[in-house]
């Protein structure tokens, strides 16, 4: 039964993710007082990408990009199939590693430099990503998603600090300003399209598709904090997911991009203070 839910994610994930991306673009445009593209523009873009011939830089690129897609799907499947959340995070890391390697394999200045920046972004997010899993483990006593959602009280009650820390790295994870140092959704980036500079045509379409999966996966991680054994909590989760996504768009359009040192220190400091503080508090409470 749960496996089926996993496969439903595989099918519906990109549609919902693409929709989220479309909404993001519409809101962004309105915040900048532009008309902006229609809601379904991402899908049209995708269709266009897939029609184009991919000019491949080298033979490694195709399989590295495919790996990127496959492991982000697996990360979502693991979550929805109710499996181990830590494995879902490992799979997500692996998927990003594939994208980095695709950029590295181009052996060109823009690709190479943004691949390194992407690695730095991963270094910024990884402590907190692991902490997410630890937070759920502390609140439910298990890494299994089935056990996490079966709790009487939602995780947010126990681990609000972890949630706050997660919100900060979510900006990095979704490649939003101020933390979009490796590649950006805005045209003014000095890295052009960053890691995807040397990726073209249908391969670019696959990267886009993976990004939708990732969008929806992040949405799901947010929602997971609010879900409990009460069915109504699912609604709260979805609502909060939408709210957080809106918040991300708002942040994206409010803050100017920062330098990498700033990104690193902000991410690590918030992880340490919010998540680490929460962890310390829970441990102390358990002791006494």
């Amino acid at each position, binding site marked *: 039964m749960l496996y089926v839910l996993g496969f439903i994610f595989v099918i519906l994930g990109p549609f919902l993710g693409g929709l989220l991306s479309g909404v993001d673009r519409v809101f962004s445009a309105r915040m900048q007082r532009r008309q902006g593209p229609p809601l379904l523009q991402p899908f049209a873009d995708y269709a266009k990408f897939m029609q184009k011939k991919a000019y491949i830089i080298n033979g490694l690129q195709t399989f590295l990009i495919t790996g990127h897609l496959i492991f982000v799907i*697996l990360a979502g499947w693991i979550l929805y199939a109710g499996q181990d959340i830590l*494995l879902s995070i490992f799979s997500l890391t692996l998927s990003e590693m594939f994208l980095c390697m695709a950029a590295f394999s181009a052996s*060109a200045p823009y690709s190479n430099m943004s691949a390194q920046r992407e690695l730095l972004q991963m270094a910024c997010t990884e402590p907190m990503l*692991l902490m997410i899993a630890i937070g759920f483990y502390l609140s439910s006593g298990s890494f299994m998603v089935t056990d996490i959602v079966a709790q009487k009280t939602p995780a947010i009650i126990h681990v609000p600090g972890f949630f706050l820390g997660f919100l900060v790295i979510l900006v990095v994870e979704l490649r939003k300003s101020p933390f979009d140092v490796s590649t950006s959704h805005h045209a003014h980036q000095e890295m052009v399209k960053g890691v995807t500079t040397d990726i073209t045509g249908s391969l670019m379409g696959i990267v886009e598709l993976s990004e939708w999966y990732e969008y929806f996966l992040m949405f799901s991680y947010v929602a997971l904090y609010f879900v409990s054994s009460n069915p109504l909590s699912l609604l709260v989760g979805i609502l909060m997911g939408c709210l957080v996504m809106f918040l991300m768009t708002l942040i994206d359009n409010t803050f100017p991009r920062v330098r990498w040192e700033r990104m690193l220190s902000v991410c690590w400091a918030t992880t340490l203070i919010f998540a680490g503080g929460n962890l310390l508090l829970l441990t102390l409470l358990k002791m006494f």
Partner: protein
Amino acid sequence: MEFSIAIFLIFFPFVAALVLYLLGNGERVYKARKVIVKGSALLIMAAAILMAVLILGRGTPYPFAEHTKAVDVLMACGEAFLMILVFYYSIRYKKIYTAVLSACGTLPILWLTFSGAAGESTAPHMQIDNLTVLMILVVGIVGGLIAVYAVGYIKDYHNHHKNYKDRSNWFLAMLFVFLGAMFGLLLSDCMDWMYFFWEITSVCSFLLIGYNYEKESIKNSFTALWMNLLGGVGFAAAILYSELSLHVFTLSELLQVDRTVAPGVMIVVSLLAFAAMTKSAQMPFNLWLLGAMVAPTPTSALLHSATMVKAGVYLLIRIAPLLSRTTAGVMVTLIGGFTFFAASLMAIATSDGKRVLAHSTVSNLGLIVACAGVGMPESVWAGTMLILFHAVSKSLMFLCVGAVENVTGSRNIEDMHGLVVKLPRLAMVMIIGICGMFLAPFGMLVAKWAALRSYIDSASVWLVLFLVFGAASTTFYWAKWLGKLLAVIHGSQATKDTTHTGEWESIYPLAGLVVAMCFLFPLISSGLIQPVLNQLFHEEVPPVIGQSDMIIMILMFVLIALLPISAVLTSKKRVGLTDQNTRSYMSGVNSGDDRHFMNSYGDPQSVYMANWYMTDLIGELKIMKPCLLISAGILVTMMLIIIGGAI
């Protein structure tokens, strides 16, 4: 049967060493040398495996060597010989402090043996239990493979460095001497005997680091010597206190001591932990391991990553039950966790391949040390798993870097740019090695995962934090290296791979082991590690990684394996060698070779992207000193608290 294998494992390497030494150097002995090394390595491996089967089948530890007055005296003579050897070198190179340290460690032990002040020990001096067997397997199999590799390597090494005197017979002999000493150390239960073998490994390491008599090697070899001898002094002090005041002679007796009855046991434990941390190159003693990288690569692979430095963590795991929930345990976990994090940061800022491996070794040993310090069954499970995976993956990495250095003349990571085209076979194996070090679903990550769980369960907040941040920087330095290997430069051709068959004969099995252990780790867990925990803690540990997780991990592995295979099948074009691919974007028109773009004069302009090292932020020059100070502060303060509290 067990007895004779044990004797074989200790003495046979010394015999092989003698034969290899007497064989001398030169082109004509190369064939004979190859046969002898290969044969001896195979025999040692076979003996190690046979021993494992016998002891694991037996279920209970196998003690032997009860009455050993004559051997005690022989060993004392051996210790005296080592001391004289150290004296000789320290006078010759005017480093008197090493002589002083050696005397401080050895003389009290000699006095103890000859005066009989501690009384007669009736306990068996040697014991083979499951932990011993596990370590013997690591030393036997990985060590044997590295010895096989060394024959071809050292030949090329001297071809590249004509200015060094060819002492390769001595070099190979020392490798075997080391193997014998290592087996002795693992089999000894009596601390006196263990100390003897401990000192042999220290001196072996010293001699091998100084192999080429260069100024830098001699300097570094003395660093290694004094740090290890300092650890030896700690070991000797532990023996002295334990024999004189507690009348405990062996480690297994030490584990039986109730610390509420005899609080002095914590002094012994903390001193042993101190000795173990110097041998495992934990901060503030990590400098010797970094310096040790001047030695020829087989030395680095065998002594300084796969086996000798594991002697330290082996000792810690032995005494792990005593560390659980004590101040000594806190000391060990703090140092280990801190080392894991700090060393992984410094690895980011390093471009010399071997130095990165050294930092990474220090860092991973830190994790194992922390696991031992937590002292719970789950954490010891993780620690033992880490020992196994680390030994295999890291020695593979060393051997590959050594082979690449012998072919291209450089071990700098920047020079490995585009290795996937230039040396496809070595690059492939290196990719496996690197993935094995940090990526899911490979072994090291599984062990880290288990470590993380045990840290959370034991409520060690600081360890969890060290682990998550350290894991992030670990990912960074490995991935950056991986990226360099995978870069594809158009029009570049494969260079001639001059790696010897003998080297491949050890690289391929190790690579195979890295891959196989991903599948086999549930079996390793139940067959090798669970028995260790049974004997250490006398309780059943539930499987740390559940079955559904296993299935997903195997699925991940299959996917990873399928991707390149399908890529090869679908595209008939050879990677990077075709002219049909487009050119990458060089921030200008690519002049065709991925190294130049056309500038505004129409001339090709060279452009090259080096990796990102952040030396201004986390370079060794910047953070090494503060890190050493912090860790030394922790160590001294905690030692004072423990010893003061126990007295």
